[in-house]
């Protein structure tokens, strides 16, 4: 009897410890986002029931992974940073050499029983690695360290860019840059880069016609990438090809108005005008059926999520935790901003899903790992305070 009671007690304390590692505000915000996602998904997959079931399975798997990751203390995470990063880069090299080509890009690696997409794990591995590196050199950060950091970022980035997978490359680059930014990169370097970026975007927007003229090639860009930017500048030049996506999603969003057409009432969605409506363009479905109101709710949820993440970063004890939490939070921002920007026609179409909403298990698992990291960091802080 005594033994079973002990067992029961131990089991109970284990559950309590697992639950205590979870962050309630993050859970609530994520729950709300996933609720919205499920609602929109039910409409977007109206013609494919199996997709909706698969979405529910993805949710379950991803949330489990999040809980597991939340149990790993930051110190243990730090130990994992280098091996995970190295394995990731090795797999990318493997993709480069033996990868499977599909739809003109070499992204998949067949490891016998399944196919994996190594670039996905770099979204987590790169910020972890950088955070670990800066943490190790915490007391004497030099210019050299930033150069090493850039190298750590550049190796996987070039490999991903070469696949090519522009969407993932952007996300990995952003995650890495956020770590470097939070680590204290001089404003003197940041500001010129920002200025050059703004000027470059303004130039492309203003001189688009000349740059997109027949036969012009942009150094460093593949033809289809150039095409995406050009299509963005003037979707009507390609109304049957990729411009069709931008035009139709703009029509879906615009016709939604302030309060939308109602759940499952979106004509653009249900008459199949919106492309990729359960994956990358799911925001168009949401904005058509729930209008500006729905879009604002989504923005508020993302702001809350990012805000909570940044708070966790600001309060974290170790530099590693701070940098990682900050980068993970801003990664969510990158996802959301790039996706909504492309669906509303202000950014080029790159394969970036809407975080926690778009259909797709891999992206959801990656995001939930990020949430798990945040929770692990926050749990560590709470435990320390309790001591």
């Amino acid at each position, binding site marked *: 009897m005594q033994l079973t009671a002990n067992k029961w007690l131990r089991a109970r304390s284990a559950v309590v410890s697992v639950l205590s590692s979870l962050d309630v505000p993050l859970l609530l915000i994520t729950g709300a986002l996933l609720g919205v996602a499920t609602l929109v998904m039910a409409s977007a997959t109206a013609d494919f029931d199996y997709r909706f079931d698969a979405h529910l399975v993805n949710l379950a798997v991803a949330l489990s992974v999040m809980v597991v990751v939340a149990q790993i203390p930051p110190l243990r995470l730090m130990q994992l940073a280098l091996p995970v990063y190295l394995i990731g880069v090795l797999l990318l090299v493997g993709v480069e050499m033996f990868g499977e080509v599909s739809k003109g890009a070499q992204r998949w690696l067949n490891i016998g029983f399944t196919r994996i997409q190594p670039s996905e794990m770099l979204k987590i591995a790169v910020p972890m690695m950088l955070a670990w590196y800066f943490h190790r050199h915490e007391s004497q950060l030099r210019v050299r360290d930033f150069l090493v950091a850039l190298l750590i970022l550049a190796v996987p980035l070039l490999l991903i860019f070469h696949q090519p997978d522009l969407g993932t490359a952007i996300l990995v680059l952003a995650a890495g840059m956020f770590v470097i930014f939070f680590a204290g990169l001089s404003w003197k370097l940041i500001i010129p880069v920002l200025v050059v970026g703004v000027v470059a975007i303004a130039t492309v927007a203003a001189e688009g016609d000349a740059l997109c003229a027949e036969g012009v090639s942009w150094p460093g860009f593949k033809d289809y990438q150039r095409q995406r930017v050009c299509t963005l500048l003037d979707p009507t030049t390609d109304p049957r090809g990729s411009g069709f996506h931008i035009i139709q999603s703009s029509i879906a969003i615009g016709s939604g108005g302030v309060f939308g057409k109602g759940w499952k009432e979106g*004509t653009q969605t249900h*008459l199949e005008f919106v492309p990729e409506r359960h994956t990358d363009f799911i925001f168009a479905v949401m904005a058509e059926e729930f209008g500006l109101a729905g879009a604002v709710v989504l923005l508020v949820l993302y702001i809350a999520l990012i805000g909570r993440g940044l708070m966790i970063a600001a309060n974290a004890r170790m530099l590693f935790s701070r940098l990682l939490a900050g980068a993970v939070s801003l990664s969510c921002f990158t996802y959301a901003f790039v996706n909504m920007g492309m669906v509303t026609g202000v950014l080029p179409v790159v394969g970036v899903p809407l975080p926690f909403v778009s259909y797709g298990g891999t992206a959801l698992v990656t995001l939930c790992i990020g949430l798990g990291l945040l929770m692990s960091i926050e749990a560590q802080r709470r435990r320390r305070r309790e001591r």
Partner: protein
Amino acid sequence: MPGRDPSRHMTDLYSPEIQLTRFRRRVLFAAALVLVAFGLLLARFVWLQVVMHDYYRTRAEDNRIALLPVAPNRGLIVDRNGEVLARNYSAYTLEIKPSRVADLEQTINDLAKLVNIEGRDRRRFRKLMDESRNFDSLPIRTRLTDEEVARFIAQRYRFPGVEVRARLFRQYPQIELGAHILGYMGRINRRDAERIEEAGSVDNYRGTDHIGKSGLEQSYESDLHGLTGYEQVEVTAAGRAVRVLSRTPPQQGNNLRLTLDAGLQRIVEQAFGDRRGALVAIEPSSGGVLALVSKPTFDPNLFVDGIDTASWDALNNSPDHPLLNRAIYSAYPPGSTFKPFMALGALTTGKRTPEQAIADPGHFDFGGHRFRDDKKGGHGMVDMHKSIVVSCDTYYYKLATEWGIDGIANFMSQFGFGSRSGIDINGESSGILPSPAWKKKRFRKPEQQRWYAGETVSIGIGQGYNSYTLLQLAQATATLANDGVMFRPHLVKYVVNPRTGARRAIEPQPIRTLDLKQEHIDIIKRALVDVNKTGTGARAFAGAPYESAGKTGTAQLYSLKGAEYKEAHVAERLRDHALFIAYAPADKPTIALAVLVENGGFGSQAAAPIARQVFDYYLLGSTPAGPAPEVTNAADGE
């Protein structure tokens, strides 16, 4: 790096508190950036969903809603008694949109495993592709059986761009009857499309892919076609219709009620048997065409779903030219059927009195040339009456020479000789009313352009350059029968709106009354009655219980210079055409006709018996057992 070394700055001032403060500042900066970025997105949402909302709502509606044309039922064509000559039937067709099919040949081969597709179907499809607008849906097979439809539907997913559709087809239940009148339907080709565009009826022809190509189907196209209806349907991005939102029903085309008597038409076509020729029968009091026959005829049903090359070649290359409308297009010399009009003209212009007689030696000499009469030794003393009854040539050689070509042409033109009658189908030719003016226009060389007095001689007996359509001859006969009151010949009695029953009558008024004296007309009419009693038409009309008037004629094809015409010695295709004009009953005519049997020989022999069958049927209702017999008495001459 010139100036301050940032690394030194970092190391020197290192302390956990300062670092934390700096980090928190950067977090705040990042948070501000997030808010600004999301603010920009919000601005974009407001732009799309509030400012531009109306524009995008319209675009979404335009996307969603397609207007699909609904083709109207084509109007029916019925004869004067309501017998149906052209109607519609619904059938399943297997249609391919070539623009949406990658490998056309392969697709057709695959389809051939499901439904029966023969070589002629493939050839027809190729021909349609050449003729059509490239985004059209074109039939590879028509009239699918129910089983074939079921087999295709089960496999339909394999064939994007291929569809089974229920279509209305034109059908001519009487097969060959009146084919030249009804004409036929065919798919709209580029030229038709241009005409539709010029007429400004492009909208009304969306959804229609057949159009009248000849005959009444062509000339009454705008009446028969009807008004296209529209369905507002919700469509997917792929163009698939999901549901019907609203419907404007099409309005059926107007029906045509003809003046034609299908029974009579049938009797005439039968009366010809295998012989080639034409007959036009007209109601003199209205100009309504009772029968218009061109033999041989053809089956207009062949054209309905696109005629295949082999059938087309067979029709087009036949030496009998079945597609030729001999009643309104072919022009023939009228022969002696011209004489009553010559006589009437002589009376009207005072060139002859009825009693004035000539001695006929059997020939007429003019300018060193001898013009022969058919009867050796001549008819003796011949006055006007006798000249018609026995068909004396010498009388008319002489009359024509004295009257002169200008006077003849002037008088004849008012009967409609040499000009199109204006009948309500296309393809009419004007024939030739010879005159010095016509010759000047017709020929190039000056010596050919001159009119020689010798040429006037044979004009008097309906030979020479004389050349008229059977329709003109029938119209002239009807005008004579109607005492000079002339109507435009027409096939449609009235156009009926099938919904309201409203009728629009065609041509109820005479077009002109000829300047003739009734006593002159009566003299000619009495002579024509005697032709059928005692003259050249007497054998054919022996024992008829009604009184009829007629005139036989022979159109010479082969000039036998001075020699005697021996029918048996002349090749069949070079034999004379047999002609006959007639009307009945003689006192109050209800039917007038002109009939020609190609290479039939004498009119009394081959043509008059057909007229007898026509009158017997039309006036007495008696149906003959077979083709009209040939009367074997050629001795009288015509």
